[in-house]
């Protein structure tokens, strides 16, 4: 049922720890991790740009809010891996369809959180800035965007977790290398030690990025904004 973790069943047999260490040392697991992360970053970056732009348009123009806003919310209700068959038909088995899934998953979430954030900018701050002569892009850059930063970071944190899921799901179904494809390989050669090693890597990377990047930025911002006063 379970592969041995540290002590092998037979002398010289497989263990999860051994497979994990060997995989890292000979580069197979590292390489797969690297390519998964690169897809994650590319997809996530594009998703952030798209999400912010759409979120801003939804906040700025009521007509877009009434049309696109509703559409985005409905799309968000579809789990993003459901798009994979379509993505494979459009972009073929490979990196393209994986990145497409990542962008779709994260961008929709960022669109929703960023438009909500823009809508909740305190009107008082906008009035203060405009009475001092701030208009147009200056107003956006110095006040509207700045005041949404705490919410934007919370939104990015949520979206990044969705993106990480999407990368692995995409690779699992769509091939093209990376940790997800390696998982599928582990299944087909019945190497549970490999599957467990990869699951450990996935979990470690997920919590590492969350704790060491997002939680830290979030704490810093919340403390500076005066929302969080403890710690």
């Amino acid at each position, binding site marked *: 049922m379970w592969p041995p973790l540290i002590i092998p069943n037979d002398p010289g047999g497989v263990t999860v720890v051994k497979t994990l260490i060997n995989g890292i040392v000979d580069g197979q697991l590292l390489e797969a991790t690297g390519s998964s992360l690169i897809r994650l970053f590319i997809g996530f970056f594009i998703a952030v740009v798209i999400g912010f732009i759409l979120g801003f348009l939804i906040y700025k123009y009521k007509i877009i809010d009434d049309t696109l806003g509703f559409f985005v919310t409905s799309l968000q209700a579809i789990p993003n891996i459901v798009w994979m068959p379509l993505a494979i038909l459009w972009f073929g088995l490979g990196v393209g369809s994986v990145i497409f899934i990542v962008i779709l998953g994260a961008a929709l979430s960022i669109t929703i959180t960023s438009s909500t954030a823009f809508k909740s900018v305190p009107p008082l701050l906008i009035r*203060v800035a405009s*009475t*001092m002569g701030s208009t147009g892009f*200056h107003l956006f850059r110095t006040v509207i965007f700045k005041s949404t930063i705490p919410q934007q970071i919370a939104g990015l944190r949520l979206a990044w977790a969705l993106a990480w899921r999407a990368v692995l799901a995409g690779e699992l179904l769509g091939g093209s290398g990376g940790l997800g494809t390696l998982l599928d390989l582990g299944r087909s050669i019945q190497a549970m030690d490999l599957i467990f090693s990869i699951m450990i890597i996935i979990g470690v990377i997920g919590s590492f990025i969350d704790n060491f990047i997002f939680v830290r930025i979030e704490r810093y911002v919340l403390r500076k904004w005066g929302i969080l006063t403890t710690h």
Partner: protein
Amino acid sequence: MAEEHIILQNVHKEFQRKDHTPTIALDDVSLTIKKGEFISLLGPSGCGKSTLLNIVAGLEKETSGKLLVNDKPIKGPGNDRIVVFQESGLFPWLSVLDNVMYGLLIKKVPKQEAQKRALDWLQKVHLGKFAHALPHELSGGMKQRVAIARALVTDPEILLMDEPFAALDEQTRMVLHMELDKLWRETGKTIIFVTHNIREAVVLSDRIVLMKTRPGGIKSIFPVQAARPRNSSDSILIHLENRILTELEQEMEKVLKEELGSDYALKTNDLRVDPSNNMGSDI
């Protein structure tokens, strides 16, 4: 000093309600404000005093009428007329110093000089020590001081204050009254000060504009002829306060009658209802 600074001629403002019936916020308001004058707009809630201030600030547009500042019509907000709001509205992500510098940088003042002028003003409002603090580390009174410094550092001709001290405790308010009075005498700005506090208006202003409700407009204007710096226990001021209070009570009663039913009496009927009336029949 007698130069006319702000001229309002038949300013009229209507709001569209949800059911498309217009509400008249300001009906035919005409007022001339001289350069360097400290003028208070006083009245119960709903009398359009904040609306009037926002129109002068350019944050709202009048429905009809004429509005001139230095003989020029107003087109939107501008940094010659800066508003201090009831809540300080400091940017929480900027330090106190950066907050005060904000308006200067918009006016393209070089950074070094902006910093120097901002520090000067922080000293004037006794917050020199807190230049690098963040807004959430300050008390309400301190925040409001920063907001005043932030408005005055850009050297606007007109300072518009929308109940700036309403959210503060009594002691802090008294201290800030004295400081505002001093700053006004030193800088000679034209100040329009919205308040619902009669004492505040009496202590600070050259003229008090008492506003009425439904429709909003000017009820009467009281000049305040007392030497400065003023003491709120000055007999002239107390006498004036009582006169204003009497007029204000009539307005209050009108508002309360509309809100609570026509048998409500604040003072004139001494709460005694005609026994022949069926009590409460018209609530």
